[in-house]
């Protein structure tokens, strides 16, 4: 029996498939993460996935919505993955659980569920964690070959779940500040950029290891553009604005302002450009709007990184620009066919 109204055919694409492909595109970045920092990140992702599905199901039930079709749309999973990739893998288990639960319960479902949340749920989760639990949020793993001691996977698991380190090992020995954080701290001590970059944690463009993870996200992002899941507008405008602002400061004062490429390959820039800002629900719908939205986020990211209180700025830049989306969309409405040339009104 055909449907009651036309069209009677449709493309086989589904929301679940779109979300799944985005998760697929995260895999190169995740693989490099594991390569450089060990498998602890997989534990975070697993914890986030379980929490996301459990809270999503609970909220759907509470909201009296059908559980199965929504649970299968993969959107909660993706939110969990993005949050897991934004926080330190060695953080205690409850941190990712609390963060993910907040994403799904508050940022998503209390605003009306899939399609209705004004703010990027993963970034809300990140903001809540970094404001509420700043200390565990700094426990970033040292990349392979840099730390004095490297924990085995089992020892990492023990730390994540029961918080106990092997005897004689201190937390400082296995974790470090992020390259962005280190840069900030040392710049405050009035050290010139050149000298800071001689530190072993820095690689060719940015942080050792983390720059490679960024390459992974870039590759995944390019796949998303090629597969037409995202358009080029947001990544190009975001990375462009970040590059331009960082470039201006760098040109003006190279001793105190790092290269734009450092900003591209540090922190969550690549993840943000291709996976976070491109969230369709919380971003603008018009192409012009996407350019404005992402350029604004790029500028804000730089300003927060260079002058703000937090080492990275992608999350707050995203949330701040999320606020502007309705206005941006309203003022960037494209002209309708027949109203461009000679059309009335």
């Amino acid at each position, binding site marked *: *029996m055909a449907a009651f*109204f036309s*069209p*009677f055919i449709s493309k086989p694409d589904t929301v679940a498939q779109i979300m799944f492909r985005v998760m697929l595109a995260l895999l190169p970045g995740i693989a490099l993460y594991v390569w450089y920092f060990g498998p602890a990140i997989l534990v975070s992702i697993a914890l986030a996935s379980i929490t996301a599905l459990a809270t999503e199901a609970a909220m759907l039930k509470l909201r009296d919505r059908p559980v199965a079709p929504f649970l299968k749309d993969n959107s909660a999973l993706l939110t969990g993955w993005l949050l897991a990739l934004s926080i330190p893998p060695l953080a205690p288990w409850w941190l990712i659980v609390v963060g993910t639960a907040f994403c799904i319960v508050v940022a998503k479902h209390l605003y009306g569920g899939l399609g209705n949340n004004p703010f990027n749920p993963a970034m809300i989760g990140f903001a809540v964690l970094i404001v509420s639990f700043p200390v565990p949020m700094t426990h970033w793993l040292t990349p392979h070959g840099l730390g004095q001691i490297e924990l085995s996977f089992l020892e990492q698991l023990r730390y994540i779940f029961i918080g106990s380190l092997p005897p004689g090992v201190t937390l400082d020995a296995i974790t470090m500040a992020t390259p962005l954080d280190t840069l900030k701290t040392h710049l405050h001590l009035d050290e010139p950029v050149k000298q800071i970059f001689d530190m072993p944690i820095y690689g060719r463009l940015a942080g050792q290891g983390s720059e490679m993870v960024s390459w992974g996200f870039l590759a995944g992002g390019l796949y998303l553009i090629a597969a037409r899941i995202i358009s080029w507008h947001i990544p190009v405008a975001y990375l462009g604005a970040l590059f331009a602002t960082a470039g201006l400061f760098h040109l003006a004062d190279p001793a105190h302002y790092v290269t734009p490429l450092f900003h591209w390959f540090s922190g969550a820039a690549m993840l943000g450009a291709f996976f976070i800002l491109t969230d*369709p629900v919380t971003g603008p719908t018009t192409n012009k709007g996407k350019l404005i939205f992402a350029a604004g986020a790029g500028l804000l990211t730089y300003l927060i990184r260079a002058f703000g209180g937090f080492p990275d700025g992608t999350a707050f830049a995203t949330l701040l620009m999320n606020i502007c989306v309705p206005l941006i969309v309203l003022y960037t409405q494209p002209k309708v066919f*027949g109203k461009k040339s000679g059309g009335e009104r």
Partner: protein
Amino acid sequence: MRTLYKFHGGVHPPGNKTPSTQQPISAAPLPAKLIVPFRQHAGEAAKPVVQVGDHVLKGQLIGEPVGFVSSAVHAPTSGTITVIDMQPVAHPSGLPDLCATLIPDGKDEWFLREASDYRTLPAEELRHRLRMAGIVGLGGAVFPSDIKLRPLRNHPNKEIGTLILNGAECEPWITCDDMLMRERAAGIVQGAEMLRSMLEAKEVLIGIEDNKPEAIAAMHRAVADGGLPFEVVTVPTVYPGGGAKQLIRVLTGLEVPSGKLPTDIGVQCFNVATVYSAWRAIAHGEPLVSRVVTVTGNVRRPGNYEALIGTPLSELIALGEPLPDTDSHIMGGPMMGMPLPSTSVPLVKASNCIIAAAKKLFPAPPPALPCIRCTRCAQVCPAELQPMDLFWFAQSKNFGQAQAFSLFDCIECGACSYVCPSHIPLVQYFRFAKSEIRMREQDKLAADRARERHEYREFRIEREKREKAERLAAKEKAAQAAKPVEPPAVAINPDATPETTAQMKIQAAIEHAKEQAAAIKPKNTENLSAEQLAEIAEIEARRARMREMAKSDVEPPKE
């Protein structure tokens, strides 16, 4: 090579055209009974001019046009009119309409056929003949063709004037125009020259999608044989490339302004089948009593049939030998067609295709999920609308906002629904919103008229009172004046008798009321074209079903 232009968006659904183009067009057998609706065209239904029991000949007028936008209806074969009553027809409303039932006598005997050379006839006469021959747009809009055939003079670009033949046939499954062009190209081309002369157009472009190479070749040959300077243009296959405004854009680069007609920019567009029928009507004196229809889908023998108007669709479907799992039928294509309420309804001028549907071909869409604003709909919208926003407004019944976001520029092609990963029936929401808005504006108009009437009544009562008082006063005065010697001439200007004064006041009041009404007239229903009016009628009819749909949330039903 002509430079082709692009229109925004479009989709590429599977064509499924090959199965029905394997056999030449064949004549459908004469059915035992024909049901001929009097409303087969946009505008006013034809008025019956025959009575039950009349014997009619093939091509004899049985319904005459009434009003400007109307067309004639003819007996499709010779036989006896047995019933004139309301019958179910293929209309989205499912409401019955006035039809004549004709029992053929089997002779298929023609009424008087007057073959003419169009070059010897004035354009006005040609237009009249086309109207009386029941020639309407066979692409599906069934708009009376004679109205579209005024000379292309009133446009800024007087030099050009372009006649476009629409052979794009962009809807999947449908192949009736393709087959017609392959087999009857000469008639189409001669018809085009006739229409060109009526329009006084300088150029003729024949647009055919590149998935119809045989038709393109046949049309090329016919143009060359006819020695005519027409251009057969191969256009890319993209749905809805056969939409008039889209084809005009592709071929000329011109954009028909919103709310205007192609003629406003010096272009006129006709479907190839319409052109062919117009040619038959003038050159052979044959009114529109049959058409080519594609029978395809879940059938063993898909193909195209030349069938008499009024043939019960069940008989045509039977010719295709439907497979046992056929569970419903679609009239038209899968993108813009409608489900058939029953297969007993007759073939009408608008019927270009009948698709036997089965689950395997047209699976029910999965339950709709919320919109995630992925903008795929906006990327494919040929009208360059923002369907995700319109959906939001339609869903929340925020019709004012929907109108502000150009809802009425939606051509209901269904491309948005086709690509939606949340499987939201977007175009159905837009149909619902449009009909709701039209209904409200009609209600408002009716209310305005009622208020006008009321105000005038108040004014009239007041005036009568005053006039009565004046008359009494004048009488009294006259009576008093009569007593002394000579009554002076009544001191009233002969040009301003009470009657004329009152009339002027009435006039003033009417003017005032009109001004008031004009000041608050709703935006979008001004100057509706006849085509739009027809569309309203059609869409209005779908309302009941849409209302029901709108009641349910987009989110899937609770289990």
